[in-house]
């Protein structure tokens, strides 16, 4: 059983930055990392990426890794280029003020499973 990404945004008291994208998509797994090289080694299915790295390559890495949802923690600044790239690739982008640790803990408590 997963959680809808829209409900995850509510759980994290977070902002949805990609209006118009389907927020009823289910997420079953999460992977938290600031190291994109590490993200690129995984296989993902219904997985959200939780990261403190807010730049274009976090979105590109999600795109090439078939990750459909990205949560940026600690209210790191998200550029318009990142939002545009996410929209172009139908990646739901979320910005939360919570730390990566807190986000990960809340997702785990809500039943979202780890990758490893």
């Amino acid at each position, binding site marked *: 059983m997963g959680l809808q990404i829209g409900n995850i945004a509510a759980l994290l008291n977070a902002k949805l930055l990609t209006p118009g994208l389907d927020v009823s998509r289910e997420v079953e797994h999460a992977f938290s990392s600031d*190291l994109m*090289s590490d993200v690129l080694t995984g296989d993902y299915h219904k997985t959200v990426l939780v990261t403190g790295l807010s730049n*274009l*390559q976090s979105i*590109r890495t999600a*795109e090439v890794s078939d990750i459909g949802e990205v949560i940026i923690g600690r209210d790191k600044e998200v550029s318009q280029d990142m939002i545009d790239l996410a929209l172009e690739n139908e990646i739901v982008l979320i910005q939360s003020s919570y730390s990566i640790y807190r986000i990960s803990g809340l997702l785990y408590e809500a039943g979202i499973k780890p990758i490893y």
Partner: protein
Amino acid sequence: MRLQFHIEGGDFVNAGKASSTVKRALKQLDVSAKKIKRVIIALYETEVNVVAHANGGDIDVLIDSDNIRLTVTDSGPGIPDIEQAMTEGFSTASKSVREMGFGAGMGLANIKRNSDSFHIESVPGKGTTVKIINELKE
């Protein structure tokens, strides 16, 4: 189908654009998601390597009904010891590359892992050429 791209060294804004274009082309050809992911991860990691280490480079993509062939050539510093560079954890990346979320010494090994056929040649002081062939059929 043939696609060609130029990559600028140091240009992290556009790194991944070629991979994105090739991914779309393969989707249109109805290649399975699993096969697409393998070759696109290999191509993206290669693009990032050129952006991170070289002055620039070129990507040549040849797609036929059975295979995709990627040839990526850069005019970078070259790799003096390829075996050492393939070792996970070995890295010569700069601080700015690490700040972008890369440079942990995992790239070349991940490219090889996601390639059906992987070949690398390098001449120190001149540059590096990577050739990747992946099957597209299940």
